[in-house]
């Protein structure tokens, strides 16, 4: 009997891995094209990371500030990204986001309203105008519920609590995916003409992070192993405001909407320290700048009692704060015994988002592997060296749609692939190996050590020496992981699940470290103490990482010249 006949197999035109905003939007578009669509996700449907997004989604609707238009949004995005963004993506994103938002509304999403009944928009760091469409501070929930219900009623097949551990190939092209059901531990194989990776971020490799357990970089690692290129992996965003106390919630996000709504940052001496670092934009400076400023204040002894800065919104009326920031109000009240309508919060940087990811074509989300597409946080390019708040949720719907469309079109033109049983058998053996060992460490211990190491050596400020140490440490961690042991049965076994996630985290951590070591300048979220300035020569280059015969290989890619009209927009000052 062959391996694939031993367990269940499903066939689709388009298989979407990930049910966050990007995956769901891709699925809806592929369905609209008439494709047979399957969606796989590690959690229950509706629980993907997107559900946690708070502040809003950026689109130049100009509902409040009439001067706003796609050009300004484009310019803000490029400047925020320190000009290493894929300019075509930045252009498409700015142009299409308003239509995508209107579409959400037509599918039932209910945004907060302006006086005359239009969608309300709020200010956010790095955006020239009030641009973030929002629902209080639970925008992600509104978005995911809207997309989820739309998709369910259009009729996609959802495979929830199912984790993909391998992409299967048919020659050069992608042929399907292999995974396990979390509930039973049984294996499952998918056969598909097109696959869209929409697996989100990588934050779980760091100790202090706003990300959930799902954010282990699986899609990037699987795509990398299947031959796709990774881009810009040195650019990892540390959000300036995570909770710092109590210990159990360290890293949990405090939305930028607090500052958007007028929140002020102070050090322990009561000084509004942003005056020193960015007197023009102050609290609403870009995230890289604010995160470094807080870090510096703490390092120089001006931090709050638990090692952060004070963020204060209590000068606004209590009712206003509770209405505009309800979940922040509850989060602090219930978890930290702080009433934010009466006093300040303590906040500090937390690993939040990765600008890097799978290298894709701007128009279609196509990767370098035929049939393999990517969108959302798992894809790279739009945000360059630093993402502006609100630009992720809009990214998901703009490029989710484009990837779904292109994947469906690709499937129409393509014959069904053939699955190769030897690939399936090899991955089965690999996935089960930790059960067979009678000794070895638990994956929890190795994960703990990885997080500690990445936090210390590949954090906000980086040096040549630290990054080299990190690479050496990663070799040791990989060696330990190759001998780890998993206890218990295959039924809903989190230790086993972590052993797979850990393999992905190790690959991605290595890619981040390599790229960070190679970029000998500071730009956006990538700050090198030994190379503190941005250099024009580096501004013309992006780092690409590929798997060459099992070895992680990095090369530089020259960025294509920007058309004159876009250059013109960038040069205009506003």
């Amino acid at each position, binding site marked *: 009997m062959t391996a694939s006949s031993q367990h269940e197999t499903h066939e689709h035109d388009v298989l979407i891995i990930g049910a966050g905003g990007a995956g769901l939007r891709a699925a809806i578009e592929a369905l609209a094209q008439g494709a047979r669509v399957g969606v796989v996700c590690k*959690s*229950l*449907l*509706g*629980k993907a*990371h997107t*559900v*946690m997004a708070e502040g809003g989604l950026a689109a130049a609707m100009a509902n409040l500030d009439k001067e706003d238009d796609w050009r300004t949004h484009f310019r803000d995005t490029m400047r925020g990204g320190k000009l290493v963004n894929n300019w075509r993506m930045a252009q498409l994103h700015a142009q299409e986001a308003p239509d995508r938002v*209107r579409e959400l*509304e*037509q*599918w*039932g999403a*209910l*945004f*907060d*309203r302006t006086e005359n*009944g*239009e969608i309300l928009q709020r200010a956010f760091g790095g955006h020239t105008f009030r641009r973030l469409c929002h*629902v*209080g501070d*639970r925008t992600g*929930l509104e978005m995911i*519920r809207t997309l989820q*219900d*739309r998709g*369910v*009623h259009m009729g996609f097949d959802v495979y929830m609590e199912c984790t993909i551990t391998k992409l299967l190939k048919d020659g050069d092209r992608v042929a399907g995916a292999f995974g396990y059901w979390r*509930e039973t531990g049984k294996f499952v194989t998918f056969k598909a003409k097109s696959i869209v990776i929409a697996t989100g971020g990588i934050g779980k490799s760091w100790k202090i992070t706003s990300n*959930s*357990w*799902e954010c282990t970089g699986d899609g990037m690692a699987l795509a990398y192993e299947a031959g796709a290129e990774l881009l810009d992996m040195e650019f990892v965003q540390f959000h300036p405001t995570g909770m710092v*106390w*109590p*210990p*159990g*919630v360290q890293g*949990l*996000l405090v939305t930028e909407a607090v500052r958007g709504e007028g929140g002020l940052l102070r050090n322990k001496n009561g000084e509004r320290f942003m005056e020193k670092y960015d007197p023009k934009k102050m609290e609403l400076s870009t995230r890289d700048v604010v995160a470094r400023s807080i870090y510096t204040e703490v390092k120089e002894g001006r931090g709050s009692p638990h090692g952060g800065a004070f963020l204060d919104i209590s000068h606004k009326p209590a009712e206003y704060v509770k209405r505009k920031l309800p*979940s922040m109000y*509850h*989060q602090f009240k*219930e*978890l*930290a*015994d702080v009433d934010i309508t009466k006093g300040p919060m303590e906040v500090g940087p937390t690993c939040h988002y990765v600008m890097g990811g799978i290298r894709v074509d701007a128009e279609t989300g196509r990767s370098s592997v035929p049939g393999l597409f990517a969108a959302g946080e798992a894809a790279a390019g739009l945000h360059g060296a630093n993402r502006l708040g609100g630009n992720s949720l809009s990214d998901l719907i703009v490029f989710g749609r484009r990837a779904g469309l292109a994947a469906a079109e690709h499937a129409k033109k393509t014959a069904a692939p053939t699955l190769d049983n030897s690939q399936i058998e090899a991955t089965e053996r690999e996935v089960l190996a930790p059960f067979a060992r009678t000794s070895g460490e*638990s*994956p*929890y211990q190795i994960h*703990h050590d990885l997080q500690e190491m990445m936090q210390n050596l590949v954090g906000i400020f980086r040096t040549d020496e630290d990054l080299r140490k990190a690479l050496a440490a990663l070799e040791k961690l990989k060696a330990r992981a190759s001998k780890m042991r*998993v*206890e*218990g*049965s295959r*039924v*809903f*076994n*989190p*230790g*086993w699940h972590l052993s797979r996630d850990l393999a992905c985290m190790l690959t991605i951590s290595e890619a981040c470290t390599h790229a960070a070591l190679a970029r000998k300048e500071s730009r956006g979220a990538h700050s090198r103490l030994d190379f503190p300035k941005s250099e024009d020569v580096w501004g013309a280059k992006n780092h690409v990482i590929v798997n060459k015969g099992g070895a992680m290989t990095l090369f530089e890619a020259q960025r294509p010249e920007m058309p004159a009209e876009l250059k013109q927009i960038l040069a205009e000052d506003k």
Partner: protein
Amino acid sequence: MAEVTLRVFRGDRDGGKAVDYQVPLTEGMVVLDAIHSIQAHQAPDLAVRWNCKAAKCGSCSAEVNGRPSLMCKTRMDALPHDQPITVYPMKSFPVIKDLATDVSWNYRVNKKIPPFQPRPGVEWKMDQRDVDRVQEFRKCIECFLCQDVCHVLRDHDKKQQFGGPRFFVRSAGLEMHPLDGASRTRMLKEELGIGFCNITKCCTEVCPEEIHITDNAIIPLKERVVDEFYDPVAMIVRKIFGAK
């Protein structure tokens, strides 16, 4: 460091038993932190769902000291420490393993509810006051704690006839959407069995999002059902004018 005892259900579909674990207390700890500490140091295969750790995703539902709760929101220092803190899976759903239950029935119920359908030719403008009313329902994080506590499901297991409070909340969010044009009253009566609800308000009490499930969702929906099916005047009007 002070220690507390957690008495956690360990088992699967075929049954199981409560197991005691000693956990060191840390400042500000929540029950989910304690469960994670058990996973990391004592029982790596302890099954539990979670995502956000911030009461935003509705994954970590369980019964803590008998009360349906989000584990990520339940502070250890709010519970008595002189006796073991019990952590059990939601009772209304079949256990998969330990604290993870099979909630797939909920997803099947959701499919029965007709989606948002804008009235033809609407202008996409809405007043914040009208939106406020509906946004309350849309805060739902699908933790299913209300489903867990509702006696119609918990004690009478009417999953075939009854949709449960979560889906009345969902229906209310659609029915009261200022621009929606679909009718869900027949579905509420016949498929979701809203008549089984006898307004005990237990669901409202456990909702972590503080949605007024009974007062704001169920009662107005029951009124709509009554108007449509049992009000003779409305029925005659319907017959004469052919209104929906």
